[in-house]
């Protein structure tokens, strides 16, 4: 295996010397790509006024990425966080709850504790991923507070079919391993796709089956469990041209996960063995009709329905009667119209939508009781191009919720091209996240740990009033009165950045950002029972900010070799904690036990944020062969307060920073056959406490056969 490594390095560093320079080919810059997420209309990336990144199919394939998590973790400024409910993406220092994940512009649902597990989303057979940073609620409504990730499926209908097979293996316990090793953690992927055009109907079908012996370690127990996971994704895209001006599209996607997790827990000698079984089902149906009235007006009507179910069951060997079951079902329906008007110097978009969001869960009062929210949304945006150099975009969206307060989300963005080399852009916008069903309806009493309860804010008032009538409430806390009106969480985000293009082969992108977040929802004690047990609920209590900057450089060293690097700095704070420190109300305890006032410079801010993140990527590409080496760095992050002052300072628990190194290389053998080899986590970095789900070094081989 060391030979493979040196071979890759040889290719990367030696080939560079013999590669020829051809500047005429280099002119095709990534800036000419078309992006739809930034404005909800097709726009050249070079004209977009908000921070936008495109990850194209080639990049995804060359990186050997199978799940959305794999490719996102290689982007500077995106931090993959595992909070115990799945792996979500942290953007601009905001938790994954605040980034909306779209599939062809429509939202994916089924979040657990705010996290949409990125491993649920297969990225085989997609055209590209578009990432927009900064508040985008003016276009997308709730959840688009930190930004938007839009997965765009491959909808080309050229007659082709393709089969891909991949086999990978690794062993957490050993340095380098053989495939024959019994204890190897295996992964396997089989995918198929086919497309054709029959008369005026385009059909594109793809299917992906994935198996992995995922590794999972129970927090603070170091108990390692191999967790077999099956994931299956099927996707069908149909396109029917009714006339030159009208077409109908239908996207259907189904994704199914089956996870096993078996482990034994020892509690002071008493061993209990449990078998966990988890199934997730995701169905998305998205028909739309688009009509081009004339060169100036285009309108589309979109219907969207998505159904998610997540069921977890836990069986105990010692107590076969007591099965623990957790069920969550969510349905989301949407009717939406969007009409685009193209005038001389203006591009106007108006839209309206009616949405039904419903969920039921064993975590609420009753698994069969359906909770429903309806949302009426209106949005408009105008893009004004007074000259070739200047673009001004103003947008506004209004979301009216049945269950809680409505939200206004304005946005203003400006792009100015100073010359061919430098362009600058600035934007300010407001984002929001509506309270989710858990925050409104959760009904959880932990009889195991003393009988405390957590109720969603709508249920909490009802339940506490009932308990009061029965004389079972001992006292209400000062937070109780805040329960009545749970408001959406709001942020105001400012992004200032730009691009510098030097001779087309050296590009810099930079962006400074600041997000001020109000009404953050937190769990607080609202009452206590006469029995002494506490009742908690969700209240808008916190204020925070995140700020930092991002820098990206890409360079085409020559026709074959390209280099890119990215860096992000993040600074965050809970504003109330910061105020308390400034007012001299917060103390800290040093390791020797000395108690003293905490200095502002010792304050860390929000947990789970790496202050510095970066990546370096080197890619060699010629017609038949490619090789890439990708380095990902994350500095240490703070997790828990361990000196008792209730906030994070530099005396508290932190992880170590780490480096991940991934390699891949592939060859097109002939028109039909291509092969690929890769090593993920080449240094076999492991951290049982703080990166329990990081896969050990995995070596994989894959083959792709294409029929035309």
């Amino acid at each position, binding site marked *: 295996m060391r030979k493979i490594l040196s071979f890759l390095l040889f290719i990367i560093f030696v080939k560079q010397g013999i590669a020829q320079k051809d500047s005429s080919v280099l002119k095709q810059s990534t800036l000419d790509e078309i992006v739809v997420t930034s404005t909800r209309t097709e726009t050249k990336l070079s004209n977009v006024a908000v921070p936008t990144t495109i990850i194209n199919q080639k990049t995804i394939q060359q990186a050997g990425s199978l799940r959305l998590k794999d490719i996102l973790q290689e982007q500077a400024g995106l931090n993959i966080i595992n909070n115990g409910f799945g792996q979500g993406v942290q953007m601009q220092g905001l938790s994954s709850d605040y980034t909306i994940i779209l599939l062809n512009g429509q939202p994916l649902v089924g979040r657990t504790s705010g996290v949409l597990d990125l491993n649920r989303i297969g990225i085989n057979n997609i055209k590209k991923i578009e990432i927009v940073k900064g508040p985008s609620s003016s276009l997308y409504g709730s959840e688009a507070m930190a930004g938007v990730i839009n997965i765009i499926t491959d909808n080309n209908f050229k007659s082709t079919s393709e089969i891909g097979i991949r086999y990978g293996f690794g062993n957490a316990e050993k340095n380098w391993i053989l495939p024959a090793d019994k204890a190897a953690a295996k992964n396997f992927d089989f995918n198929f796709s086919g497309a054709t055009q029959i008369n005026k109907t385009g059909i594109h079908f793809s299917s992906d089956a994935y198996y992995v012996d995922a590794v999972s370690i129970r927090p*603070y127990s170091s108990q390692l469990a191999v967790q077999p996971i099956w994931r299956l994704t099927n996707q069908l895209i149909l396109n029917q041209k009714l006339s030159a001006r009208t077409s109908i599209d239908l996207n259907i996607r189904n994704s199914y996960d089956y996870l096993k997790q078996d482990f034994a827990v020892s509690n002071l000698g008493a061993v209990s063995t449990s078998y966990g079984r988890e199934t997730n089902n995701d169905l998305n149906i998205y028909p739309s009709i688009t009509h081009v009235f004339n060169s100036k007006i285009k309108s589309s009507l979109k219907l969207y329905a998505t159904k998610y179910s997540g069921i977890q069951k836990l069986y105990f060997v010692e107590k076969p009667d007591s099965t623990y079951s957790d069920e969550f079902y969510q349905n989301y329906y949407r009717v939406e119209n969007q009409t685009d008007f193209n005038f001389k110097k203006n591009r106007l978009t108006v839209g309206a939508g009616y949405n039904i969001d419903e969920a039921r869960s064993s975590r609420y009062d009753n698994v069969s009781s359906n909770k429903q929210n309806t949302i009426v949304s209106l949005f408009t945006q105008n893009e004004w191009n007074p000259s070739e150099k200047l673009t001004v975009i103003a947008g506004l969206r209004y979301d009216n919720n049945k269950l809680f307060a409505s939200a206004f989300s304005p946005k203003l963005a400006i792009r100015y091209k100073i010359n061919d080399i430098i362009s600058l852009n600035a934007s300010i916008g407001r984002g929001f996240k509506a309270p989710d069903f858990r925050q409104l309806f959760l009904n959880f009493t932990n009889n195991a740990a003393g009988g405390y309860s957590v109720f969603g804010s709508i249920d909490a008032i009802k339940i506490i009033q009932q308990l009061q009538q029965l004389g079972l409430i001992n006292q209400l806390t000062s937070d109780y009165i805040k329960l009545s009106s749970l408001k959406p969480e709001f942020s105001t985000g400012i992004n200032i950045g730009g691009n510098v293009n030097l001779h087309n082969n050296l590009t810099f992108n930079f962006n400074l950002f600041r997000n001020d977040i109000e009404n953050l929802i937190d769990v607080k004690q609202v009452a206590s029972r006469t029995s002494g047990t506490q009742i908690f609920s969700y209240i808008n209590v916190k204020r925070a900010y995140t700020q930092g900057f991002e820098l990206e450089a890409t360079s085409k060293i020559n026709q074959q070799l390209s280099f890119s690097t990215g860096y992000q700095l993040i600074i965050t704070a809970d504003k109330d904690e910061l105020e308390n420190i400034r007012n001299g109300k917060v103390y800290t305890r040093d390791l020797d036990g000395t108690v003293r*006032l905490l200095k502002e410079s010792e304050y860390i801010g929000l947990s789970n944020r790496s202050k510095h993140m970066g990546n370096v990527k080197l890619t060699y590409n010629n017609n038949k062969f490619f090789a890439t080496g990708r380095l990902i760095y994350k500095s240490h992050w703070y997790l828990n307060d361990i000196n008792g002052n209730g906030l994070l300072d530099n005396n508290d628990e932190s992880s170590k920073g780490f480096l991940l190194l991934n390699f891949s290389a592939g060859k097109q053998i002939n028109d039909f056959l291509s092969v690929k080899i890769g090593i993920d986590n080449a240094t076999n970095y492991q951290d049982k406490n703080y990166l329990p789900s990081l896969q050990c070094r995995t070596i994989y081989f894959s083959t792709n056969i294409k029929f035309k």
Partner: protein
Amino acid sequence: MKKTILILGIATAFIFSSCEPNNNTTAPDSYIATFNSRIDTVRDFAADTAIIAFGAAGPQYAGKYSFYSLENDSMVPRLDSNTTKWDIAFSGTIILVNNTISGPGNGGGFVYSGLYNSLTGVPKDSVIKTDVSVPNNCAIPWGSGNGWYNYSGQTYLVNPIPGRVLVIRTASGKYAKVEIMNYYIGGVTPDASETLNEKVAKQRYYTFRYSLSN
């Protein structure tokens, strides 16, 4: 139960008096009582440590209290719980004073925010509370973030809040300032990465220091 008492009196008194020489004498009228500069430290004071059951529900304890006399620097047997011999009692994270429903004494208390050394006396405008109901309405409030400690649901660790001093009125009506320094055996909080079992086995052992009023 292991218990050692350490007297840091002389050294601390010296440093203390050299830093703020007139603090106790400039405004004696503004205090109900001023604190002696002698500091006693109590280590590994067990507060209901016996686990009676342990299952999926986590550890269950007997719910018994351990009693301490601040005035006599000694532990008080449980048999004397209904007397004025004790000043402060501990059970898990619950702290009681000897008054009203907790005992027959004249006890009371409140939580002061600030450094132990800068609390030189009990200010005249202090509101001294008593135990009204256990555990939700105590002189020393119970619950994470409410009184003397913070509990983390992530690490399962109890940590005393730095900069919190318990002002206790003893059973006989004297005053003491008490600082809880640690909740784990040996006065060392387990590492966050230790297992839950290890953490549970080490918890409920108080290390605290105190000074009585003159």
